[in-house]
C-alpha cells in the first residue's frame, strides 16, 4: 500500500551511478554483477537458474510477481540471483497454480532486492557501459559508502563458480517410458528441465558433480555425455575431462557453459560479451538448415570461433553450427569425424527453455540420434 510503502533502498553501480528506490524481498545488503534480463515471462525459472549465481538481475519487464510462485516452475533447489531489481512488484498474486507470493519467497530465501527504480535507465546504462559490479542496500543510506564496498567485490571475469552451484552427490533421473539410453550429465549449474526433457526421450540421466572424471562417467555406463549450463568464466574451467570424453569418442552434447567448455576443449578461446544475452526472444540461425529459432539465452561469455570456415582439431573438424542473428555471436558448435559423422555438438543457448520458447527442443532428439549412431 502506497502510504506505508516499503523502506527506501539504493542501488550503486561500480562506476558510481546511483538509483534510489524501495526495498524489495529481503532487507539488507547484497553485491553482484549487474545484468539485465528482457524476458516478459518466466521470472520464477530465471530466479532459480544457477547460471545467475553471483549476479544481480535487472528485469526490464516492469510488472514482476503477478503470477506468484508455484511448486512446479523452479529450475533448481533454490533462488540463485545475488540480488533482484524490478520496477513494479505485484501487490497481489493471481494465478491458479500459485502457492505463494514472490515477495515472500524472496524474503524467506534472503534475496535482497530493490523496486521502484527506472529499470530502463539502468538497462540502457549497462548496455552502453557493459555489465558491471553493483550493490543494493536497504541498510546503507550513503551511496559513497556502498560504492566503496562494491569496488571490493571480485569481478565476474576470472570467476570459477561451477563448484559453488553443483551437487555434491550424484543422483539419477529415470527414463520415462522405455529406457533407450544412459547419459552422464555433469552439473555445472544444471536446470531441472534439462534432465526432464532427456528423460521424456527415454534417457536415464545420471547427474554428476562438476568434479566428475571420465571414470565416474564410464561407471554410469553412459551412452553419451552432457555438460550443463552454469555460472562463471569458462576460461577458469579445467577441460581435461571433456577432452578425455572426446578422445574416447563418446557422443557429447553441451548447453551454454557446456558449449563454452566444448569450445575450449577444441582449442578455441572464449571472451566476455559487453553485456551478454539474457532473454527469451533471441533469433538464432541453425546454419545446417538455414532456419531461425527463437531461443532462450543466458550467457555473458561466448566462444571465439571462425564463422566462415571449419577448424581442424585433434578430435575432428569443428564448425560453427549456430549464430545469433542480432550480433553474429557463436551460438553452437559441431564436431565431425573425418568421414563426416557427427561426434559431438553443443549450443550456447537453452533448448530446454524454461523460461522461453520451445523452438530448439529438437536438439535433444539430435542427441538421441547421435547416441543411436544415425547421424
Amino acid at each position: 500500500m502506497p502510504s506505508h510503502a516499503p523502506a527506501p533502498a539504493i542501488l550503486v553501480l561500480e562506476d558510481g551511478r546511483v538509483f534510489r528506490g524501495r526495498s524489495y524481498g529481503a532487507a539488507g545488503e547484497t553485491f553482484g554483477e549487474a545484468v539485465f534480463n528482457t524476458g516478459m515471462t518466466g521470472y520464477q525459472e530465471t530466479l532459480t537458474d544457477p547460471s545467475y549465481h553471483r549476479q544481480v538481475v535487472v528485469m526490464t519487464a516492469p510488472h514482476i510477481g503477478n503470477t506468484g510462485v508455484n511448486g512446479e516452475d523452479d529450475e533448481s533447489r533454490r533462488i540463485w540471483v545475488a540480488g533482484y531489481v524490478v520496477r513494479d512488484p505485484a501487490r497481489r498474486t493471481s494465478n491458479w497454480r500459485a502457492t505463494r507470493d514472490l515477495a515472500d519467497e524472496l524474503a524467506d530465501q534472503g534475496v535482497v532486492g530493490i523496486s521502484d527504480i527506472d529499470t530502463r535507465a539502468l538497462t540502457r546504462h549497462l548496455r552502453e557501459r557493459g555489465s558491471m559490479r553493483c550493490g543494493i542496500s536497504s541498510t546503507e543510506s550513503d551511496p559513497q559508502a556502498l560504492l566503496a564496498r562494491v569496488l571490493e567485490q571480485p569481478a565476474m571475469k576470472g570467476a570459477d563458480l561451477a563448484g559453488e552451484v553443483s551437487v555434491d552427490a550424484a543422483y539419477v533421473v529415470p527414463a520415462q517410458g522405455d529406457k533407450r539410453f544412459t547419459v552422464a550429465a555433469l552439473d555445472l549449474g544444471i536446470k531441472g528441465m534439462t534432465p526432464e526433457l532427456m528423460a521424456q526421450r527415454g534417457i536415464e540421466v545420471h547427474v554428476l558433480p562438476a568434479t566428475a572424471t571420465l571414470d565416474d562417467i564410464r561407471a554410469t555406463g553412459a551412452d553419451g555425455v552432457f555438460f550443463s549450463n552454469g555460472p562463471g568464466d569458462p576460461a577458469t574451467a579445467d577441460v581435461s575431462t571433456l577432452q578425455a570424453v572426446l578422445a574416447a569418442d563418446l557422443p557429447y552434447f553441451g548447453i551454454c557453459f557446456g558449449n563454452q567448455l566444448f569450445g575450449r576443449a577444441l582449442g578455441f578461446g572464449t571472451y566476455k560479451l559487453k553485456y551478454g544475452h539474457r532473454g527469451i526472444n533471441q533469433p538464432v540461425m541453425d546454419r545446417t538448415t538455414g532456419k531461425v529459432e527463437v531461443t532462450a539465452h543466458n550467457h555473458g561469455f561466448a566462444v571465439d570461433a571462425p564463422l566462415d570456415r571449419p577448424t581442424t582439431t585433434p578430435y575432428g573438424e569443428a564448425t560453427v553450427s549456430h549464430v545469433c542473428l542480432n550480433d553474429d555471436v557463436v551460438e553452437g558448435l559441431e564436431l565431425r569425424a573425418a568421414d563426416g559423422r557427427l561426434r559431438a555438438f553443443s549450443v550456447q543457448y537453452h533448448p530446454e527453455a524454461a523460461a522461453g520458447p520451445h523452438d530448439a527442443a529438437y536438439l535433444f532428439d539430435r542427441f538421441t540420434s547421435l547416441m543411436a549412431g544415425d547421424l
Partner: protein
Amino acid sequence: MPKREDIKSVLVIGSGPIIIGQACEFDYSGTQACRVLKSEGLRVVLVNSNPATIMTDPEFADATYVEPITPEFVEKVIAKERPDALLPTLGGQTALNAAIALHERGILEKYGVEMIGANFEAIHRGENRELFNAIVAKVGGEVARSFVCHTIADCEKAVEELGFPVVVRPSFTMGGTGSGIAYDADDLQRIAGAGLAASPTTEVLIEESIIGWKEYELEVMRDRKDNVVIVCSIENLDPMGVHTGDSITVAPAMTLTDREYQHLRDLAIGIIREVGVDTGGCNIQYAVNPVDGRVIVIEMNPRVSRSSALASKATGFPIAKIAAKVAIGYTLDEIPNDITAGPHGSTPAAFEPTLDYVVVKVPRFAFEKFPGADPVLTTHMKSVGEAMAIGRNFTEALQKALRSLESKDAAFDWSHEVVELDKQALLTEIAKPHDGRLKKVMDALRAGATADEVFEATRIDPWYVDQLSLINEVAQELIAAPELTPELLRLAKRHGFSDVQLGRIRGTSPDVIRGVRHALGVRPVYKTVDTCAAEFAAATPYHYSSYDEETEVAPREREAVIILGSGPNRIGQGIEFDYSCVHASLALSEAGYETVMVNCNPETVSTDYDTSDRLYFEPLTLEDVLEIVHAEEQAGPVAGVICQLGGQTPLGLAQGLAANGVRIVGTSPDAIDLAEERGAFGRVLARAGLTAPKHGTATSFVEAREIAAEIGYPVLVRPSYVLGGRGMEIVYGEEALRSYLEKYVAAGLISPAAPVLVDRFLDDAVEIDVDALFDGEELFLGGVMEHIEEAGIHSGDSSCALPPITLGDREIDRIREATEAIARGVGVRGLLNIQFALSADILYVLEANPRASRTVPFVSKATATPLAKAAARVMLGESIAELRAAGVLPAEGDGGRLPADQPIAVKEAVMPFNRFRTPDGLQVDTVLGPEMKSTGEVMGFDRDFGTAFAKSQAAAFGHLPTSGKVFVSMANRDKRSMIFPVKALADMGFEILATQGTAEVLRRNGVAATVVRKHFEGPGPQGEKTTVQLILDGEIQLIVNTPYGAAGGGQVGQARLDGYEIRTAAVRANVPCITTVPGFGAAVQGIEAMLRGDVGVRSLQEWAEVVRAGR
C-alpha cells in the same frame, strides 16, 4: 530466400468504407503494404472504394481504383491490369471475402492471378469452423464444443446437446456481425436468424458458452522458410463474452506464467502451420479458464486485423509491412528491424519483440447516437473507435488511455459520493458488461467491495482489480493529505493521474496543479518504443511519456512543427482527419521541417512511426500536449503547433495552448472563436451581407415557443456546444418542442449557461458543402459539393456530388464570394469548410468550420489537388500564388471552376444500423436527420452522374437492381415529385408495388401499381404478405420510402411506424432503401446507367490526366 522474381505486379484490395469492426487499421496496413511493394519495384494496383484513406492517394500505388469492392468490379480491374498476384490479407474481411468470391468464380484462374500471403485453401481452413476445429484438435488443442448449423432447426438441435446459454457465431463475418449469446429460445430464434442472414455461406456455429474465462490473443508471423515468430500477446481485461474490439485490452499479457504462455505459443505455431498461412500474419484467440488453466482456442484470422494494427503500435513491429515483404518472398531473417536500425547496423525482423512498458487499449462507443440501442456488450462488436496509451506500468497506461477517450466521464473520478450501501447495487450493475463498467468497478471498490467480490461479479482477473484498488488507494491519500507534497504528487503521476483529476480531487483547477507541478519540477520523461526493451539502441524516435527518471528525446537542429492528430475514431470524426494530418506531415517534411506527430489512435497511419520524423503516442489533452511542446522546445526550435487538421479535438485545444504561450500556426485561436461562437459569427455574416437562417436562443420552453412562433415552424433545435449534430432535431410543432425541451433540460444539456439554439428549418433546401483554402489574400475554392438529400440530413450522412449537378455558374460565383467574405471576416489561414443551404434562391450559411473537414480527402481525389498538403504550407506562411508556382496547386483555376468533361464524383455515407438492436432485439430506426450517424463513406467516380451514383451505391450497399420489384411508399408532400421516377422504373420493366395512397396517385397518373398490405394490417385473408414480410422474404429488390415528417398519433403515426418497420426490414434483408426524393431520382439515373451496361473502371491516375488536360 530473396524476393520472388516471378511477381512483377500485385493487386491489393482495401477494406472499403469504415464500418464498426473494420476501421482505419486497414488503411494503416494497406498503406504500409503499398509502400513496401512499390519500394520493391513492383507495380501496385489498388482497389478500394473508400476515398478517405491514405492508401487511395495516387502516390501510394501505380494504379488506384476507387471502385466498388465487388467481384464484378474487381474482375474489370483484373481484366484491365492483368496483375501477377493478388494480396488479399491486408484489407480485412472485405478483401478476404472478395478474394474468395473471385477464386470461386474462377476469375483468378481465368486471368492467371496467384493469391499470395494466404491462398484460398488456407483462408478456407482458417475460416471454416469444421475444418478449423479439426486442425486445432490435430495440434493438440481444444475448441469449445459446437455444431455447425444451416437452419434454425439445426440450431435448436444443437441447443438440446449444449443447453443454454449458447454462443451463436456466423461464418465469414467480421466484428462478430450477427453473433450473440442466446440465453433462451427467443434469443436463439432472433440471433441465429440474423446470423444465418449475415453469413455469406448461411452458416452459423452454435457453441458451448465459456463466458467469464480469461481471453488472450497472439499475433503470429510466418515466412516461406517456415520461420514463425509471435509478435505480441494481448490480454483482455474484460473476460470472454465481450468482443475483443469492445474489451479493454492489455499488452503484453500480465497474468500468465511462462509455461502457460509457451503453451499458447506452441498452439499458435502449430495452427498457423496446419492452416497453411505460409507467408504473412494471422492472429489467434484463446480462452483460458482461470480456475484450472484449461485452454480453448476461439478462432484465428488468416490476415492482418485490428489487433495486428494494435500489436504493431504496441511493439514497434510493423506487422503489415513485414507481412507484405514475406508475401513477395523474403524471409524474416532477411528483413531488417528498422526500429533498431542505427549506426551499429540493425537486428533482423526474425525475433520476438519484448516490452518494458505496458500498453492499454480502450474502446470508444457511440450509443448516445442510437436511441434505444442496447448498451450491453456482447460477442458482436459495438464500439466505433479506440484509444491506446503506453505507460511504464499498468496504472499509468490505463489512466492515460481513459483520458485519451476524450469523453468527459471516461476518466476515474472521486468527486461523487459513494457509500457502503451502494455496494450490492454496484456489484449487480458491474456483472453485466457495458460502456463505462470500469468506473462502476472503481465505485464498487470505493463502496468497500473486495477484489474477490469484484472478481465473482465480473470475472475480471484479481490482479487487475488490485491495480484498480491501488489507483483508489492513491486517490484516497490525495483526498486525505493536508497538502500536496512532492512525494504525493510524484506518486499520483506515477499511477497516471492527470492534472484535471488532481484538480477535482483537491478542489482546485488543473492550471493550479500544473503550476505547482512545474514549480516542484515534477514533469514526465519520454521513453522509446524500441521492440527490444533497450537491449539495442533505437534509431526511431517513437516516444511515450512516463513519470520516470531518464528521458530519451534527442536534440535536433531543424525547426519542428508539431501536428496534433484527431484521437479515437468516433462518429463525426474519423479517418478523414487522420488523412489531413498525415498529408501535412508529408508536405512539411518535403518543405524541410522536422515533423512531430501527436496522436493516441492505434488504428491510424499518423501513428505509424514511418509517417513523421517523431511520433508521440500520447493523449490529446492540454496537459499532455503542453508537456510534449516543452520537451520538444528543449530539443530544438519549434515553429509551432497545427491544430486545424485533426478535427474538433485539436481545435478545442488551440485556445488553451495559446493561453500558455504556445504558437499556433494557421488560423488563430481568436479567429477560430469568431467562427465557432454564434453571436460573433452572426456579426461576421452581417458585415459580409450574408444571411443565416432566422434563429434565436432559449433556456426554457416558454422562451423557445416565442422564438419558434416568431421565426415559424418547422424549427431545428439543438443544445449549444455539440458536435456531429448531437441532440439536433427538427421540430414541426409546439408539442414536439415542449417534449424536446423537457427531455434536454432534464438531461442537463440545456441551461442558462448552455441555451438551446432554435433555427428556422429550411424545408426543401439544397445543401452545399464547400472546402476552401485561404492565405489572407487569395481564395482557392477546393470544391463545391451538392448534397443529394435536402438540407436537414447531416452533411456527414448525405450523399453528395462534385462537381455540383444542378448548380449553375451564377450560384457557384455567389458561393465563391460568400466563402471568400467569410474567410476574410473570420481571418482564416489554411482550410475552411462551410455548409450552405440554397432555398428559394436565397443562399443561407448554415455553419463555417475553420479547419480541415470530413470532405477534404474526397475533394482532393475528385479534383486531383492535394488540399491538405497545400493547407499545411499555407499555415506555415506560403501563399497560394507561391504554391501554384511550386506546382502544389494548379497554375490557374480551382475546384470551383471545373472543365466541362470533368468526371463526376459521388460520395455516399455508410451507416452502422445493422450493428445495433434494442434490448428486446428490435432494430434501431434508420431514418436520417440532422444528427450524424454514419461511420464511413465511399466514392463513385465516373463520366456521368448516373454511373457515378450507381457505383457509389454498389460500393456502399451492393448493386442497384436492374430488374424485379420496387416497393414505393411516399409521404404526402413527396407524392407529386415521385411520379416521373416511378414511371421511368416501370418503363425499364420493374414491377411497381405500393401502399394504398401512393398506388392511387400512381394509377391516376397512368402507372400501374399493385397495392400491398401495410404492416399493421397484418397478412390478408388469403395470406397475402405484408410489405415487411415481402421484404424479409427477399421478394423486393428496391425500396423507396420517404419518412412522414410530422410526429403524432392516428393514421400518420401508424404510417410512420410502418415506415420504421419497412426501413428496418430493409436493413435486415439488406435491400437498398431510398428515403429521400432526390435520392430516388439519383437511383433511377444509376439504374439507367447500369442497364446501358457500359460501366467501366478507371484509375485515379488516369482520371487525373483528364482533369489536368481540362485545365
